[in-house]
């Protein structure tokens, strides 16, 4: 027997004016399987929802289509309505007749609305229920590092009742804390004793990670401590491996050679200078001190802070003359503007130079020659000590850890890819977090924010001991999988592994927990073994089928739900009009769009195909937009091969807040299509 489909149309309190709803209802009622069509003006309000529930129950409706506003707004509400009516929430398909139909075009768009509803009805026929399940997770957390961030993360996690292991490669915790002490008035000993006295925290020193397997909630970590190897299980991993600093002089061999004899005495690092400041037995107090920063590396938030703190301390303790050479003072950290003012008020002289000063050393004195921007003159300073510019660099083990965990680094080699879709402390792999200096040049305030964010994130994930998931949302059919490993190699979230289920052959196993539902694997699988519920071939082709029946050539646009889809909604809201023949298919990521789906669109009569994804370097699923671009090129090659001209396929990058760019993309493809004579 045919599945009973209920269609609910909503005119959004009269906000949808250019659609003749009665005409739509009449046509939709004739679609196969549609058992009832309801008109409403307030479907998302209590009254509308109640009517919807009673209709679903009375008519024994099995699947639901809602034609109303964008699913971006209310999809979750309607899913709840389905659940309340006793249906699985995933048996819902929405037709966006407001933002992407009524508001996007001028004049009557009844015909388009009918087609959009038809797409949704076609899709809903194939939708399958998805079960929800709570997957048990390990509540223990591994914190890699033993510095300020690591210690404080562990202490705070302990306070919310989560057990942690602090994994420190050195022999003791808090090796580098001394340096911070004079800046912020910390007492490392008190922090360390707090950790040592905490029953929720296990400390492993002289130990490092050698291998990691598994996924969020169930990481298996091999740790080498001394000669032995320990295997432990953790629910989450937090990297707090910090940074290292290097004198900028080190990168210039000539300077280094010149200064070799005296370096460490006359030319010092901030850390060495701190030690001098604290040394009670220092015989001669330096009379003239030079500082340098922000010439070689513009990421100098931390060096700025160190310079200001040390300059002030020296001024107060020794009363020395202090000259600071800089290119730009980075005062965006809390309290730094004040610190800078204080330093000036105390008589610290700031000299701005565009190019790095020339440094020479002779007879125990360091000569600094710079061109002062404000004076417009050369400045020559002979000083007793130069606190040289320091570069803020990723810690030694960063690269090794990144390959061990298979996570990306940014262009400077720090943890975390530069991608606007990632929250500051999260990685592309669920359950792996970064905190503090290992991910950026951060001041204390920002580090504390990082710590809180990580603690909130981890607590939310692990505190209940289980995480709710949609069961087998993305699944490799074990019968069809040929274990080619393609999906494992391409998954940006590291969510796929080879598994041997029930002692049968090895197949790709997708972790429900670690999967972020992008569908990149499904689109690339050469055996078509991976099915992504809601975006399977059947569901996509059913939508294409609905748009194929019109004569005047449609433009099919596969729109990423993280970028182009909301951009299209925004275009509607702003009444930025674009050609009416555009038919949008919402996809979870541009990387989910299969070459085969594009070719099928043409088979069904599409005049052009658009693939719209996130901006370069800002794909929610890291590589999805890059793959989409490659696939579009491949598709053009395939079409050229068979001499099918005038069927343009194009990929554009559109961010969610760029409705104009969306409209430009649509206009562009329309122009190309017209030029090629269709």
């Amino acid at each position: 027997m045919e599945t009973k489909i209920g269609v609910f149309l909503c005119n959004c309190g009269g906000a949808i004016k250019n659609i003749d709803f009665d005409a739509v209802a009449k046509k939709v009622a004739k679609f196969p399987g549609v058992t009832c069509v309801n008109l409403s003006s307030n479907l998302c309000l209590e009254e509308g929802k109640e009517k919807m529930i009673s209709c679903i129950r009375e008519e024994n409706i099995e699947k639901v289509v809602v034609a109303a506003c964008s699913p971006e707004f209310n999809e979750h509400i309607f899913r709840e309505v389905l659940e309340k009516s006793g249906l699985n929430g995933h048996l819902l398909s929405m037709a966006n007749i407001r933002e992407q139909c009524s508001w996007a075009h001028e004049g009557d768009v009844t015909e388009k609305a009918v087609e959009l509803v038809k797409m949704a009805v076609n899709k809903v026929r194939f939708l399958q229920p998805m079960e929800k399940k709570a997957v048990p997770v390990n509540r223990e957390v591994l914190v890699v590092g033993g510095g300020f961030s690591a210690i404080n993360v562990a202490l705070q996690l302990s306070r919310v009742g989560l057990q942690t292991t602090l994994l420190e490669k050195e022999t003791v915790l808090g090796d580098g804390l001394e340096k911070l002490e004079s800046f912020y008035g910390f007492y490392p000993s008190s922090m360390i004793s707090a950790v040592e006295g905490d029953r929720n925290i296990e400390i492993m020193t002289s130990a490092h990670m050698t291998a990691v397997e598994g996924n969020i909630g169930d990481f298996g970590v091999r740790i080498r401590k001394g000669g032995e190897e320990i295997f432990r299980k953790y629910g989450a991993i937090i990297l707090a491996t910090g940074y290292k600093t290097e004198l900028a002089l080190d990168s210039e061999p000539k300077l280094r050679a010149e200064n070799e004899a005296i370096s460490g005495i006359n030319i010092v690092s901030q850390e060495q200078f701190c030690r001098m400041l604290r040394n009670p037995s220092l015989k001669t107090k330096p009379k003239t001190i030079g500082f340098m920063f922000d010439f070689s590396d513009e990421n100098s938030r931390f060096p700025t802070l160190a310079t200001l703190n040390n300059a002030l301390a020296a001024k107060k303790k020794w009363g020395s003359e202090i000259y600071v050479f800089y290119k730009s003072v980075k005062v965006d950290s809390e309290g730094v503007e004040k610190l800078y003012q204080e330093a000036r008020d105390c008589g610290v002289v700031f000299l701005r130079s565009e190019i790095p000063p020339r440094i020479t050393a002779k007879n125990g004195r360091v000569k600094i020659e710079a061109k002062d921007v404000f004076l417009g003159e050369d400045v020559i300073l002979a000083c007793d000590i130069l606190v040289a510019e320091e570069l803020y660099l990723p810690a030694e083990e960063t690269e090794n850890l990144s390959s061990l965990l298979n996570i990306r680094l940014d262009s400077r080699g720090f943890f975390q890819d530069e991608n606007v879709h990632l929250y500051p402390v999260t990685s592309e792999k669920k359950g792996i977090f970064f905190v503090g200096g290992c991910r950026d040049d951060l001041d204390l305030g920002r580090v504390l924010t990082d710590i809180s964010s990580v603690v909130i994130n981890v607590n939310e994930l692990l505190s209940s001991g289980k995480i709710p998931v949609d069961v087998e949302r993305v699944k490799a059919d074990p019968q069809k999988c040929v274990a080619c490993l393609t999906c494992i190699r391409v998954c940006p979230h590291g969510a796929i592994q080879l598994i041997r289920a029930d002692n049968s052959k090895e197949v790709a196993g997708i972790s429900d927990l670690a999967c972020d539902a992008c569908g990149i694997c499904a689109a690339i699988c050469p055996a078509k073994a991976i099915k992504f519920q809601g975006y399977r071939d059947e569901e996509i082709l059913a939508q294409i089928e609905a748009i194929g029946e019109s004569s005047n050539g449609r433009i099919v646009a596969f729109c990423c739900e993280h970028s182009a889809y909301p951009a299209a909604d925004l275009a509607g809201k702003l009444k930025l009009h674009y050609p009416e023949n555009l038919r949008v298919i919402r996809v979870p990521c541009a990387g989910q769009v299969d070459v085969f789906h594009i070719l099928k669109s043409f088979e069904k009569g599409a005049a052009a195909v658009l693939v719209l994804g996130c901006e370069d370097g800002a794909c929610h699923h890291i590589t999805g937009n890059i793959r989409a671009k490659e696939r579009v090129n491949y598709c053009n090659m395939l079409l050229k091969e068979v001499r099918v001209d005038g069927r343009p396929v194009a990929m554009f990058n559109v961010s969610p807040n760029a409705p104009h760019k969306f409209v430009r993309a649509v206009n562009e493809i329309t122009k190309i299509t017209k030029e090629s004579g269709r």
Partner: protein
Amino acid sequence: MIIAERKPMEEIKQFIAPYKKVLVAGCGTCVTVCWAGGEKEVAVLASQLRLARSAEGSEISVLEATVERQCEREMVAEIKDKVAEVEAVISLACGSGVQTMAEMFEDKPVLPAVNTTFIGMPEKEGLWVEMCGACGDCFLDRTGGICPIVRCAKGLLNGPCGGTRRGGKCEIDPEKDCAWVLIYRRLEKQGRLDVMRKYYAPKNYRAVKRPGKVQASKA
């Protein structure tokens, strides 16, 4: 694993020109793994052919099927009904699969849509390299598990030649590693460099019987 790649479209279009109903038959084993002839490639080629014909204004009906191993008669037999419907079969399997298919359906032309290229392994996602020449007289015990017959541009059994470039690259292609440098390094690691001191006479390839036949001992 057997690696193949799709033939140029011109060639395919030419040999299917006389037909109006064809079956695109994929294979679910080696050629699926190397992205040349699995279910996905079957769908793509079928779609391309339909689009090509509709652009030309001539009709075609393209059926699709993928069997687990086209080199097995029993598995090929599973699609015999579909084969019966068409005028010709386009096979995306390796040469062995094409021949099995051709033997099973003697009355139908079975046309190869891929070139069977070599035996190899994936270097990374989507890139396969040749590893074995199936010479029938394996030499890998003497070369640290690196086959000079296919990985050396000259197929030398006693290498390296005099043309090795700086950095251990091949004189024929500076992008490629010299197999004999790789062999030296591997044997050095194992403390077996003495193996390289021995001279190996050229292989007598004429002795390899065609067609080859392997009889496994009865279990």
